[in-house]
């Protein structure tokens, strides 16, 4: 389990070109094998956040003759590749927007596959994990209005806790990322000034203070080496580095520690639109971790009309059937939160909508 987790982190941190499981048994070019047994090769690209999951799924499916190549180039790149139909599926952290769908080759199906807490990690000697923060305070820290750790605004939330007067060093992502979008969406929800200063929530922001570092691994290392630093990293990185993380105040007014269960709770408590394009940031519910992000697998509803073969469609269906079945257990081992039961059954139902030239995919 620990090995699997560290593998996953390593794969994501280095944004490896292909978190794949190249099956040595081959069979990738043989179309006859593809159509009859579902064996074959499928190609995806996109989300670096979810890359370890797809890598592990691929590895587990390789014994069944299915090779999964996933190119972790970021969600935006994955969507662009799907629009050009150069891949079978895209991995994207935010759901594909309607205007992005229209720029593609047809209607799409979006499957939520995993959730993850975006943790607020800090490096503050003498202060243990579980410092309480709310959206407004966090926004003020990231706006540069709260400059010291013993600022009254932080102290008010943590009565009885002894806070040092260390200067706060804000650390953020310097590359554009879905993690950033999730994080600033939470800030913007609690502080109207955020949008004025840093712009509407998107994959990068106009950070008024602080220092940027590339990727989760860069932010993690900057937090580690800077006393007084605060930053946001995906949960796996916080666990890996043994970071102290903040308990964040959610919509229901509760302070929630980032755990896999709290991330799954956020997913269970979020409203699910008919096309499953769920957004779990600032979810309602007392047990929901408020800064929870989601990741999707996006495919064309009719892959064959978008230029893929029926064999490809069968392989993708097999891949998704596994991912929305046994694959969910794998996610926990990799420090991701699986889908809650209600959402999982909706996603499995959506799988039956897959078509090849109008006919259902076997």
């Amino acid at each position: 389990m620990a090995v699997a987790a560290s593998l996953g982190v390593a794969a994501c941190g280095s944004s490896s070109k292909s978190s794949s499981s190249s099956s040595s048994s081959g069979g990738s070019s043989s179309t006859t094998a593809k159509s009859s047994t579902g064996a074959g090769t499928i190609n995806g690209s996109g989300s670096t956040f979810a890359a370890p999951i797809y890598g592990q799924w691929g590895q587990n499916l390789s014994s069944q003759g299915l090779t999964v190549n996933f190119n972790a180039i970021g969600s935006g790149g994955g969507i662009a590749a799907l629009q050009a139909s150069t891949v079978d599926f895209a991995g994207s952290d935010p759901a594909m927007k309607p205007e992005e769908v229209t720029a593609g080759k047809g209607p799409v199906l979006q499957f939520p596959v995993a959730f993850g807490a975006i943790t607020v990690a800090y490096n503050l000697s003498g202060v243990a994990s579980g410092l309480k923060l709310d959206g407004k305070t966090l926004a003020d820290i990231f706006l540069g209005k709260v400059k010291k750790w013993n600022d009254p605004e932080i102290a008010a939330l943590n009565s009885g806790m002894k806070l040092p007067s260390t200067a706060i060093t804000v650390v953020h992502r310097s590359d554009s990322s879905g993690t950033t979008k999730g994080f600033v969406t939470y800030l913007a929800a609690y502080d109207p000034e955020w949008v004025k200063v840093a712009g509407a929530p998107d994959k990068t922001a106009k950070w008024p203070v602080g220092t940027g570092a590339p990727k989760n691994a860069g932010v993690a290392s900057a937090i580690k080496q800077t006393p007084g630093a605060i930053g946001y990293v995906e949960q796996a990185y916080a666990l890996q580095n043994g970071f102290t993380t903040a308990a964040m105040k959610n919509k229901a007014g509760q302070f929630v520690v980032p755990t896999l269960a709290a991330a799954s709770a956020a997913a269970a408590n979020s409203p699910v639109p008919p096309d499953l394009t769920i957004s779990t940031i600032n979810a309602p519910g007392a047990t929901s971790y408020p800064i929870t992000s989601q990741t999707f697998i996006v495919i064309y509803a009719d892959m064959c009309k978008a230029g893929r073969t029926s064999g490809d469609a069968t392989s993708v269906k097999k891949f998704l059937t596994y991912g929305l079945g046994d694959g969910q257990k794998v996610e926990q081992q990799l420090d991701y939160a699986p889908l809650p039961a209600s959402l999982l059954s909706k996603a499995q139902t959506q799988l039956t909508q897959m078509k090849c030239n109008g006919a259902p995919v076997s």
Partner: protein
Amino acid sequence: VEASAPTVSGGRSVLERSPLSRLPDTVLKFGLAVIAAGVLILLGAFFVVLVAQSSSAFSHIGVFNYLFHNNWDISQLGQGAACDTGHHCTFGAWPMLLGTLLTAGIALVIGVPVAVAAALFITELCPRRARAPLSMLVDLLAAVPSVVYGLWGFIVLAPKLRGTQQWLADTFSFLPFWAGHVAGPSYFLAGLVLAIMILPIVSAISREVIATVPVEHKEAALALGATRWEMMRMAVIPYARPGITGGAMLGLGRAIGETIAVAYVIGGSTTVGHSIFQQGQSLAGVIALQFGEAQSTPLYKSSLLAAGLTLFVLTLVVNLIARSYVVRAGRIGDKGPGRFSRFRRSGGGAAAPGITAIEPETL
């Protein structure tokens, strides 16, 4: 010579080879011309593609707004139509343009004096036996991959220099763009790392140019009672100045184009910092860090390619200026008989193999 040779009918020399045997020459000439032209065509193609791809950003935002507006707010572009419908779109790359120029400037201020000093020491002062190994060591700095410089700057230098930077920021806080809380990565740190990265090229060119100073000039200075320092100041440096300037400009070109090392140590903030100890971003850095996510948003992608075009033009201009300086250095040599003759001949011989091909003609 041919006139005295015996001839056969048709006026051809018996020694002359048949026209067909000259064919390899023709093929060679043609082949090399095609390959050489390929370089130009490639460069042209880059330019055309960059212009074509960035045109939508420039037409929506305006060239001036794009270059000089301090507002890299991609959410404006994410909403797609925001810039089309007459809505005032103030999206601009000024923070990155400034970051590129500022870090490259800091790199020159720190790097060039060190590089020239190293070149002077190696050519004028150091024992003859140590010359070659020392030059080689300095040139070896160029062999370190830039990502290693970046990681070293980010992981080792940033935490180690935080105190120093803070001290500098506090002590000289009366200077403009100087004060503030130091986090680690900053314009200054990026400039420092770049200074190390441009050292080898500036030093190699300076060494080459200083080696061309005629021995007579130096001996004359010494004979008139000059000290070593006075000799360098009055005979060597004035003579070598255009060449050194050219070398510095080439170093500037290198600093402007450097991507991954800067991306690690500049701090990745797409706003203009208040002091050189604050965080910013460079044109090359923003492309490297944001291109992956930009691909599904056409105007965002176009804006990053526009940053690429800006960088291309900037580097081109700097290199043209560098070239003109080095060529001028060559021309000064032509004025007096014998001056610079050694520079002309130095092609592969004098000092560092590999970097010695820095002759005025070939630049």
